[in-house]
């Protein structure tokens, strides 16, 4: 009520006039009423009414905040947070080692960043997650839908269809083994067609389209409330060229990060970003580091770096608030058409499914 007039979200011209007329607090404005306000400042009655409505809304929001109710800032105890975290689902990746180091899988309401050299499997993991988020709850999934924002053009529908088919087959095998009613019921709606229909694909060609899409994302997510995963494949690509003004880039990236955090929290979805690696020249050696600079490193909550060790792919958990740093090997397998093998990421032993190396 004692809020300063200068801090109200009115248009700058109106604010300037109010201050010039001598108004200092919101209380004064509310007491004057629309007719008095319009006469004193010289604006129409409708404009004055609109301004007062904004002021009233703001003050109501403030009062609610100080009384501890729900507003745009949340207040809760750590116990409530613990209970929430324990019931929260994870999006599993089907690679048990990877799920272990992540503490169960990709967490909802958090931003996970995947960095890696080209060709290491980032887009494959994103496609895998877009399918895995749709696994029904009785099979241990979160039964959500996925938004896939592609900036590099590396999303291949055929490969996504392969992954989806293998996932459905895997669930069918589980259902056959357990023979439970709800499993079979869930399988009726969990098919290749339904999985692909619930992956919402956006192709952004430059950073403006990406920014525009992220601005529109909250409305989209309100319409499609079952979305539990937002993937941005290639957050680095549109920002790495055509930017002479690096401070503008930092500002845009920070704004993007904040919006994504809000989206992740408000809609209880996981946000997964993929980043490129860039070469940094040190004193006597050059290293590959994640692109987009040091300040971008703060944006993601969890950071995974994929790299190579001779011919073995490794994943390192680089940054996480709850899990410790560790490295695991992984492979990308291809399903054999007769349906015996499951298309997923396996641990390194028993990797005879991989078609690799010499063709003899």
């Amino acid at each position, binding site marked *: 009520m004692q809020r300063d007039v200068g801090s109200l*979200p009115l*248009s*700058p011209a*109106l604010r300037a006039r109010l201050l010039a007329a001598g108004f200092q607090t919101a209380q004064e404005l509310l007491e004057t009423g629309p007719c008095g306000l319009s006469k004193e400042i010289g604006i129409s009655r409708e404009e004055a009414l609109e301004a007062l409505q*904004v002021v009233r809304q703001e003050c109501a929001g403030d009062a609610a905040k100080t009384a501890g109710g729900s507003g745009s800032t949340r207040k809760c105890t750590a116990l409530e947070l613990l209970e929430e975290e324990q019931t929260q689902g994870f999006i599993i990746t089907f690679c048990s080692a990877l799920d272990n180091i992540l503490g169960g899988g990709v967490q909802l309401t958090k931003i996970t960043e995947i960095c890696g*050299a*080209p*060709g290491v499997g980032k*887009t494959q993991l994103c496609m895998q997650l877009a399918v895995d988020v749709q696994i029904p709850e009785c099979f241990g999934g979160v039964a959500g839908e996925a938004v*896939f924002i592609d900036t*590099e*053009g*590396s999303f*291949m*529908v*055929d490969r*996504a*269809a392969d992954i989806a088919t293998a996932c459905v087959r895997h669930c069918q095998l589980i259902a056959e083994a357990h023979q439970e009613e709800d499993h079979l019921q869930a399988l009726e709606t969990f098919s290749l*067609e339904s999985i*692909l*229909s*619930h*992956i919402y*694909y*956006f*192709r*952004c*060609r*430059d950073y*403006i*389209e990406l*920014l*525009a899409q992220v*601005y529109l994302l909250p*409305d*989209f997510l309100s319409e499609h409330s079952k979305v539990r995963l937002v993937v941005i494949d290639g957050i680095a*690509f549109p920002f*790495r*060229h*055509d930017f002479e003004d690096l401070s*503008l880039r930092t500002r845009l990236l920070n*704004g993007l990060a904040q919006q994504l955090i809000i989206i992740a929290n408000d809609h209880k979805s996981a946000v997964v970003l993929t980043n*490129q690696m*860039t070469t940094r020249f040190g004193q006597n050696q*050059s*290293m*590959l580091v994640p692109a987009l600079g040091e300040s971008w490193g703060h944006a993601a909550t969890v950071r995974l770096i994929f*790299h*190579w*060790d*001779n011919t073995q792919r*490794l994943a390192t958990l680089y940054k996480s608030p709850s899990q410790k740093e560790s490295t695991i090997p992984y492979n*990308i397998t291809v399903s054999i058409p007769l349906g015996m093998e499951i298309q997923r990421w396996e641990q390194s032993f028993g990797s005879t499914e*991989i*078609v*690799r*190396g*010499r*063709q*003899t």
Partner: protein
Amino acid sequence: MATKKLRRAKLSQELCERLSRYQITTCQDFLCLSLLELMKVTGESYRNVQKLLRKVSLACAPKMQTAYEMKVRRSINPSAAFLPTSLHSLDKVLHGGIPCGSLTELTSPPGCGKTQFCITMSVLATLPVSMGGLDGAVIYIDTESAFSAERLIEIAGNRFPTYFDSDEKLFCMTRSIHLYRELTCDSVLKRIKSLEEEIISKKIKLIIIDSVASVVRKEFDTKLQGNLAERSNFLARGASLLKYVAEEFSIPVILTNQITTSLSNGLAIPADLVSPAHDLSLSEVTGASGSGKKESACVTAALGNTWSHSVNTRLILQYHDLLTRQIVIAKSPVAPFSTFFYTVEKSGLVLQVIHS
């Protein structure tokens, strides 16, 4: 999309005039400002500014499609998704051939057969759809002056003798291959920008740039300060233009690249961050291009890390022994690592089966 004028974003006339006084005329200018700056510039309240932001974003944002719609569209026209290379084992692993709508890169040391491969692909693109071609014209941007029309006719005549049985057919094929000789980075970029119109007017179905590396490495000496950033800029801009054209018209784009050696004394790239896709010395190289032992120098594809991210598929050609070479699928969204052996003959590249 970014340069779309605000008038076309359905903002009111007076608002557009007011914004143009602050030099904000395109959607790009509008979206790059923070909310407070927008309030100052438009003179609107916080809520109204958010509504305006959403309106402008709607004008710029891409259309949504579900993965299922994409699949249906693909299955209606399956042959339009790939250009088969006529090397059957390679095509099988690549799920059809060179993918349409994305960039494919061919890297190798000199003399392995990149230009031969490109010439073969040009012939294949002009073939009718029933024979596995795309029935269209080809744009061949040649920066090394390595294209030989005689070799083109030799490959066509020897590879498809039954189809090219008359001179008339051969000349018809050569008429649909448009060759451009570009010798500087600027002219290459200008040519890439003009591609959109040429594709529509000449019904182009394949774009080949042979080679990107030679023209870039000639002009940018990365030891000089500032050149590395400029080079990355040029490459990134070229890559995004080519990607736009490839996706828009759903045609394949083939680029060729060279090899560079990164010496391990001093500037060492730690082995665990360089993938086998880059480190060619990891596959045993004997004979023509090495003495059989692993050298301390690490051989990688040129043009740097950023470029490696921009291409979607990467094929590496290498020497195996004096006559045979090998193709390695180093990066592909649909295929695993695979190696195939081939030799270069009169009819172009021919796959061999090696029994070790």
